[in-house]
């Protein structure tokens, strides 16, 4: 038996851990462009902020789209609830609330990550240190993932936590794509131009896929391949299809455990079936932006349904 509040805590714990890591990845990708193509840097930082869902709150606080400001806002600004340090603190507060549902190693890894981030991000980051800080954040979340996968029993507790991870990940990947969908459209793709090359690389980099892309496709970046890879490839761990494979699976486990088929499972399976039954050219034909906007809305709806089906509130 699991309290609805505990399930809710597990779900948001993992959503916020995933968010912490995504913030580091987004900045990492932005930083790469800023370092190599300084004239386009402020545009790139705007995209990063849009992907992070933090563009308007940033604009309310800063006027210059510099690496310093953006990294500060997305990593260490406590007034931004999605900043790495704020997200990690929310994750840790949730973990503390569900403490008795976690293995000791999982709890300690979260607590230590929180302490490490607090320490690293206590004062403004020297730009020379930024790559090191981003690496350290990713390392901390990887340690949490390791403890979690290595020690947690595969029961409802695990399922609810995983739902949080994949809901957040699907949302994050869809947002990254949607912010830059126009550079992926065939009509505006100047194949081989260096302009697009770095935009495309930036997209891949922000979901840690710039190397694995080459293992799956030929070396050259092609926008349809990139979109296909991030949306439909069920083996790519940050793709929409991959996320939904696991969302549907964990909801199926929960349904079996509880002896009931919940509306959330229906929704997840429907979305997963749509991802599996679609080819990338169909998506481009109906409109990439429209597809992504629909996806993001459906993903949110699934989150609401999960909360309702399992007594989160």
């Amino acid at each position, binding site marked *: *038996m699991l*309290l609805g509040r505990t399930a809710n805590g597990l779900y948001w714990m993992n959503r916020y851990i995933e968010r912490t890591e995504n913030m580091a990845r987004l900045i990492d990708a932005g930083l790469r462009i800023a370092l190599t193509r300084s004239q386009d840097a402020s545009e790139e930082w705007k995209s990063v902020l849009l992907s992070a869902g933090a563009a308007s709150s940033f604009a309310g606080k800063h006027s210059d789209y510099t690496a310093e400001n953006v990294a500060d806002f997305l990593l260490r600004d406590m007034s931004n609830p999605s900043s790495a340090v704020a997200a990690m603190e929310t994750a840790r507060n949730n973990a503390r609330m569900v*403490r008795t549902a976690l293995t000791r190693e999982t709890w300690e890894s979260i607590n230590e990550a929180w302490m490490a981030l607090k320490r690293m991000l206590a004062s403004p980051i020297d730009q020379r240190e930024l790559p090191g800080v981003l690496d350290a954040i990713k390392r901390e979340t990887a340690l949490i993932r390791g403890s979690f996968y290595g020690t947690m029993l595969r029961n409802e507790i695990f399922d609810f936590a995983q739902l949080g991870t994949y809901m957040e990940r699907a949302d994050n990947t869809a947002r990254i794509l949607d912010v830059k969908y126009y550079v992926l459209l065939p009509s505006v793709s100047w194949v081989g131009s260096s302009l697009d090359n770095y935009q495309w690389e930036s997209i891949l980099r922000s979901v840690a896929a710039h190397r694995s892309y080459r293992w799956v496709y030929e070396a050259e970046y092609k926008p349809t391949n990139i979109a296909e890879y991030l949306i439909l490839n069920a083996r790519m761990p940050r793709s929409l299809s991959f996320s939904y494979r696991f969302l549907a699976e964990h909801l199926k486990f929960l349904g079996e455990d*509880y002896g009931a088929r919940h509306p959330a499972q229906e929704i997840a399976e429907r979305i997963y079936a749509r991802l599996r039954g679609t080819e990338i050219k169909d998506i481009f034909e109906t409109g990439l932006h429209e597809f992504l906007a629909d996806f993001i809305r459906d993903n949110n709806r699934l989150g609401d349904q999960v909360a309702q089906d399992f*007594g989160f509130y």
Partner: protein
Amino acid sequence: MVAFDEMLPAEAGLRRPYEAYDGWLKNQDPARLTEKMRDAERVFRKTGITFAVYGEQEASERLIPFDIVPRIISGNEWRRLTQGIEQRVQALNAFLDDIYHRQEILRAGRVPRELIATNEAFLPEMIGVRPPAGVYTHIIGVDIVRIAENEFYVLEDNARTPSGVSYMLENRETMLQLFPELFQRIKVHPVENYPQLLRQSLAAVKPNGVNGAPTIAVLTPGSFNSAYFEHAFLADQMGVQLVEGQDLRVVDGHVAMRTTEGYKQIDVLYRRVDDAYLDPLTFKPDSALGVPGIMDVYRAGNITIANAPGTGIADDKAIYSYMPEIIEFYTGRKPILGNIPTWRCSEANSLKYVQEHLAELVVKEVHGSGGYGMLVGPAATRKEREEFSKKLAARPSNYIAQPTLSLSTCPILTEKGLAPRHVDLRPFVLVSDRIRIVPGGLTRVALKEGSLVVNSSQGGGTKDTWVLDD
């Protein structure tokens, strides 16, 4: 005044309960002990991480200092103590039953009516309620001090929601890790089964209509409460749910918790939320920590609340001074464990005496706790005493006074070797169809030389407490 040392009293030499430990201690390399002390800190910090991380802020998350020298009580001493404690908790429950029914003790004039009538801990909403097995206070922490070989006194009864039992368990765990060989040489009664006993005890007072194993839950104010660690720890160890008010509502005539599969009935609620916050429909209307309507379900007999609401009337410091009368009234016998002589400042003669002897007395607030708002006469400056005297004159009924007792001492390990420090003892008592007392308890120790204040909020530490199986 020389305090009684429980290991090595001034005149008598090494006391028997410590002989085996002393034999072991003599053969220890002092360097190894110091190293163990550091180990203890490390082990405790690791276990203690659990204490630390549950506090509100990292900065305010303090570890309560732990001393590696055990406080040792012989089997015989313990048997005497438990007889006294059993008598006392029986009297406390009989008193509560009486106060919420016929009030015979008031009619008999043994306790003044005004003491109950004007007391905020008296809950009219409890009038006429008789919980299963007639038990009102299920979990009690009785604070005991010793001043001589055969002199034990009860300092106070904690009959509402006593805390600290998790420290008793963690202290033993730490000692087992540090000195496994000691537990092979010396037979010490185990305390580890406390959570199981607590569970059995709570299950034994399930509501009358419940067939089969009852569903038990622990109600906490939430993760920002200072005792949250203990709430989570006990729920975990008992294998029951840790719930908050927001998880609960009245469903089908019962209090039920919201689970991922719908609402599930709760039969016994071990609550760590104060009376005033328990039910916004009955008490403080703005409380978000409680469960609206739980008092209705309770009066209808569909849930057991442990401890019952309104038990505070039994552990109030003003009531404390009447405990000898209360014990005699309900058990027909003299108390086995004595009270510390207490002057009630509400009485004119007592107030006069207290004002004249402030320099010798400890004066406490009737409703205070944690050592706050008290005056330790001998340790206070003249100015402090004068200021306190004014407060006393302004609200005499708010205070009681007691002689400064020379609490017994036990050795602690300091950088310069063993040194005596004052201690008290809180054994934990479980009352249901029978009384269970775990052999041990929480020994609190004043770490500062000469200090008599053992409260952890004021520089106190803790020790493992051994009851010998002899």
